């Protein structure tokens, strides 16, 4: 599913070169639930950007679902993001002047899907996260946990190959965090591939496999 080989990403901070990812090699198989854990500055955000096709590696090979990503143009990457990846962010990243329903529908609009099909898919996604009563609300009218559910619904509505969650519980209290993690677990049990990035060991421990990243290098910790 995800095949990272010798991925290197170097940033230029002033005069100094910072190696955010240093020859990272990593595999994620279909149906896996992997968490990536590391302190801030460890390169985990960069890893997520590369996996999520938001950023390109300076060196190394990345094959996502059989597609060699490094040859893709920006517009092609946008299409890959739309079809293959569902993002869940720490700060939810919902569009504030659109309702829950419209936020969830948006990726399908970008895919150019028929309206009838869109309505069906949105309904399914909303049911999966249990937000049926809130579809016509604006994101600002919802609690943090509810907003994150909307974000998850938006991520799964496209039926992506990979759900990529970046600190999805970072802005939530422990009780709500648990609910969100449960949703991820449920999605995983339904066959979704999930990569969860976090700095919280408790959250990371919920995944089937934990990958630790530090100073741009990764080491596998545990397989459950």
């Amino acid at each position: 599913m995800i095949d990272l080989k010798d991925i290197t990403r170097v940033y230029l901070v002033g005069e100094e070169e910072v190696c955010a990812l240093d020859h990272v090699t990593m595999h994620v198989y279909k149906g896996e639930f992997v968490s990536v854990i590391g302190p801030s500055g460890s390169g985990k955000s960069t890893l997520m950007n590369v996996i999520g096709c938001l950023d390109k590696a300076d060196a190394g090979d990345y094959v996502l679902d059989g597609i060699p990503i490094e040859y893709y143009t920006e517009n092609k990457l946008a299409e890959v993001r739309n079809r293959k990846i569902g993002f869940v962010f720490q700060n939810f990243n919902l569009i504030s002047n659109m309702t829950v329903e419209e936020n969830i529908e948006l990726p399908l609009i970008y895919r150019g899907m028929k309206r009838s099909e869109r309505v069906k898919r949105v309904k399914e996604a909303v049911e999966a996260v249990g937000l049926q009563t809130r579809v016509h609300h604006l994101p600002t009218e919802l609690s943090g946990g509810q907003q994150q559910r909307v974000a998850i619904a938006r991520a799964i509505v496209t039926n992506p190959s990979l759900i990529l969650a970046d600190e999805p519980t970072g802005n939530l209290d422990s009780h709500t965090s648990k609910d969100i993690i449960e949703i991820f677990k449920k999605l995983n049990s339904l066959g979704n591939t999930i990569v969860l990035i976090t700095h919280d060991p408790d959250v990371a421990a919920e995944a089937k496999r934990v990958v630790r990243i530090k100073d741009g290098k990764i080491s596998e910790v545990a397989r459950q």
Partner: protein
Amino acid sequence: MIRFFDAVFNSGVVQSFRMAIKSILSNKMRSFLTMLGIIIGVIALVVLVSLVNGGTSSITSTISALGNNMVYIQFTDDVPKEISSKETQDKWIENNPSFKSVSMEYALLERALIDNEYTGVMLSGVSNDYFDIMGKELMMGRFLTNADCENNSMVCVITEKMAKEKIGYYDCVGEVLTIGDFDYTIVGVLDDNFNSIEAMMNWGYNVYIPYEIISENSISGYTSSCTLYINARDGYTMDELKADVDTLFKRDYKDVEYEIYDISYIEDALGNITSVLSVVLGAIAGISLLVGGIGIMNIMLVTVTERTREIGIRKAIGASRGVILRQFLFESVVICLIGCGIGIFASWFLLKTGSLITASLGVEFAMDPTIVIIAVTFCFVIGILFGLYPANKAAKMNPIDALHYGG
């Protein structure tokens, strides 16, 4: 067909349009202020051009009311006796079905003696048909009659202005007027129609007497002009009349130098002036529209910066550059077109109100459909032109930077 609409609907054009409307509505005050530049520009454009057109059409209709079925022939040299004789003219009318009536006007500057004082008047020798051809109207008394002209009666018809300013009162029918060496009895006073272009162009102190009095008595004033007026019979066009006149003169009066005119010359000249005026005023209004466009670009740049995060989100979930570009381009075009619509409506209102005020003068300002189309097109082009740079800036954003903008 259904497939076509389906494609349009699903291509996201409709969605982009809806998003644009939503974004405009979510910031009503700002959107309105931005539109104001366009609204004022459109009002300036539509109202100014419509005012010029309205004024022009009222003037041209006055001109054509005066003589849209008449030609006049001016002679460079003296007119041969043959042309000016009633018999010849009657024969022309007989042979040319397009001729309705014919009249000479031999006009010269003479001095009249009124209250023991000399004063300049324009003395015109005309036939009885002259008044009909020129569309004259009476204030009091009568026109010259056929009998007056056949008998060379010493009678005259004067203008309203002449009566009022030279004689001192309107009711002067029956009085005797001394002009040059002769006395004439006033039989009629004309109604000076100040709407008519002729009244504007004329000096106004005119005295009309039977044509042959001038030639019989060899009256010669200081300056003189000789003009032949012919009007068209109903059902004949001006071009047919002119062609007939030209044929007649070329065949029968080869040696006479003449020039044929009609009122359309004046209309053409006026049309040239007003179309130049329209273009100049339109260009000035166009500049104010451009300024409005710059305002739109300014606010769109602010909007793009404000919504950087949103652009990042959209890109992350799969919006291509083209989709982002279209969304912001639509927004600026929609702002421009809404502004344009409001401007056109306001112009229509202003012109209607203006027409109420000027209705008594017989001037009406109608909104010209052409200028409405021009205004809409221009606004559309401005929306695209000034929306392109901000929209492109949004489209080119790096998704990672955009997502992390402002925390």
